């Protein structure tokens, strides 16, 4: 049984089909990227998977439970127990320190454990920033705190909606490296991104277009490079264009990342 399965999922806002008959499966331990132009329904899908929203139609099976039929209260419980969320805007509680922000997730999940929270901060390289308020941290550091918070309760799935969207390259690399570690530990990752650099390191890339699953690119060797689908004429450059990214990638960076990953 797949960890996550979407069966003919629709999300309809009036006339707009934000999700239009989406079906997909994600296996346990898989690392999946989701790409697509702005407004293609990526966040909508993530919100549904993340138990923050319900589909208009269709089934969403998470760990065998159809979350499209659960009450709001149950969804909160499922989200708390199974899902770790990472957002583009770092979203930390601004009057709590980095450590307290991580402990907050423990608090709602089970028991706050300062030692464990510190270890999580250490994993993202922020042990020495534990007592800082978000305003005293850089954007990259804030996002790493968010990663620490997302992983603290050992969730089944980590859902990251453009986690590197507001980060510079150096911080992007740090976060992607953290994803590698989590993946190696068996965590299921679903990462929405506009950035092919970030997308290509996953095992699979799903491309959404106007609420439909337009393409699925399997990174067979999982070497971190998107395999070109000749029949569809899919190219990295196209993905970039679809996402409105003009700048060509710096080849150096790509190479460096691949080296660092292995």
């Amino acid at each position, binding site marked *: 049984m797949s960890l996550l399965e979407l069966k003919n999922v629709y999300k309809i806002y009036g006339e707009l089909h934000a999700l239009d008959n989406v079906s997909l499966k994600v296996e346990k331990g898989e690392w999946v990227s989701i790409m697509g132009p702005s407004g293609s329904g990526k*966040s909508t899908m993530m*919100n549904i998977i*993340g138990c*923050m*929203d319900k589909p208009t139609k269709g089934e969403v099976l998470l760990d065998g439970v159809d979350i499209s039929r659960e009450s709001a*209260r149950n969804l*909160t*419980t499922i*989200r*708390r*127990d199974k899902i770790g*969320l990472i*957002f583009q*805007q770092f*979203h*930390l*509680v*601004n*009057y*709590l320190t980095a450590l*307290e922000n991580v*402990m*907050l*997730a423990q*608090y*709602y*999940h089970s*028991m*706050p*454990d*300062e030692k464990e929270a510190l270890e999580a901060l250490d994993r993202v390289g922020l042990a020495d920033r534990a007592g800082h*308020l978000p305003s005293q941290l850089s954007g990259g550091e804030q996002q790493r705190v968010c990663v620490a*918070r997302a992983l603290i309760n050992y969730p089944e799935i980590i859902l990251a909606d453009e986690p590197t969207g507001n980060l510079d390259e150096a911080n992007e690399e740090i976060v992607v490296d953290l994803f590698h570690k989590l993946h190696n530990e068996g965590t299921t990752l679903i990462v929405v991104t506009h950035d092919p650099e970030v997308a290509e390191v996953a095992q699979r890339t799903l491309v959404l277009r106007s609420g439909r699953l337009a393409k699925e690119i399997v990174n067979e060797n999982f070497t971190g490079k998107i395999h070109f689908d000749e029949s569809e004429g899919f190219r990295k450059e196209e993905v970039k264009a679809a996402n409105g990214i003009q700048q060509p990638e710096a080849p150096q960076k790509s190479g460096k990342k691949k080296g660092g990953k292995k």
Partner: protein
Amino acid sequence: MKKRQMYLRMITASLIRRRSRMLVALLSIAIGATVLSGLVTIYYDVPRQMGAQFRNYGANMIFTPSEEGFTLEDIQNAAAVIDSGDLVGIAPYRYENVRINAIPVVAAGTDLAGAQKTSPYWKVEGAWPAAGGEIMVGAAVAENFRISEGDSIEVSFTPEMEDGHDVVEDTYLDFKVTGILDTGGSEEEYVYMSLADLESLTGSAGRADVAELSVSGGGEVLAQYEERINQMGSPVQARLVKRVTASETTVLSKLQALVLLVTVVVLALTMICVATTMTAVVAERRKEIGLRKSIGASDRSIIGEFLGENLMLGGIGGILGSVLGFVFAQQVSIHVFSSSIRFMPMLVPVTILVSVAVTGLSSLLPIRGATQVDPALVLKGE
């Protein structure tokens, strides 16, 4: 770490690190609590204050003789019925026709110290007579006789004709005028001297025509005293001066009702103010609420956290309010009633409790709004 510890750590962090925001909320709570505890203090202290004030407006009980007049001793005996603590002052009066410059005037002899207590509102230009040989002249008399403060006057008395005597000798006494009495009432037509002086002038002692008493206590207590004195079978007839005592009670209850009304209005205003502030606070923290929900906070924990913060604010506001409220009541008391207020220790916990309850109550709706935040919506925007 226990959950409760984390909870406390969170809400104190919210209060301390969001100081400037919280101060606004705290301010409205503290002001409300201040006015409340101040008004309640005044509400309870007003009877005490006003009782004293009204007693200032003179005698509220009068002794009159039943038939043939009464003696000073009768008055003493009747007054003994009244608790010494309740008896503010007693002044027996004896009135005699005397002459000044051969013109008849009524002289009142009294216990001058007692009369000052039963008639404290009398406006005296100069001073009350303090010793023998001193006299206070009513303003009307003073005008007629062109007497002013510091003058010396001669008062004469013509005894009643006794059997077997053709001629009676007038008696004379010299007095120094210490003050002119200005009441705007009939008191201005008399002259006032000590009872002893009047007795030596007239040559007869121990009698009085009337006695005025100032007695503290509510209407019921006064009525009881009145009844007990009248049942003694002495020549003393006690009578409450109904006009004063009745108005004392009605004015008091009206004042208290007014204070109560203002208290209720202030309470309502405070609640509206707190509710408004809390609504703003919730609106401002929508992102945070959405975030908390997204990492698994149930509606109950959101309510718990906001309520906890607000109750803590209510508590702090209550503590501030009970201190400032006393200061406020004290100022009002000093400036309005010219006397200081009694500190009521019970009012401190009551103020804090009420403040906590009011804050909690008025933040219920805003907090309900917090639970309705949709995390998916608030977290996606920039």
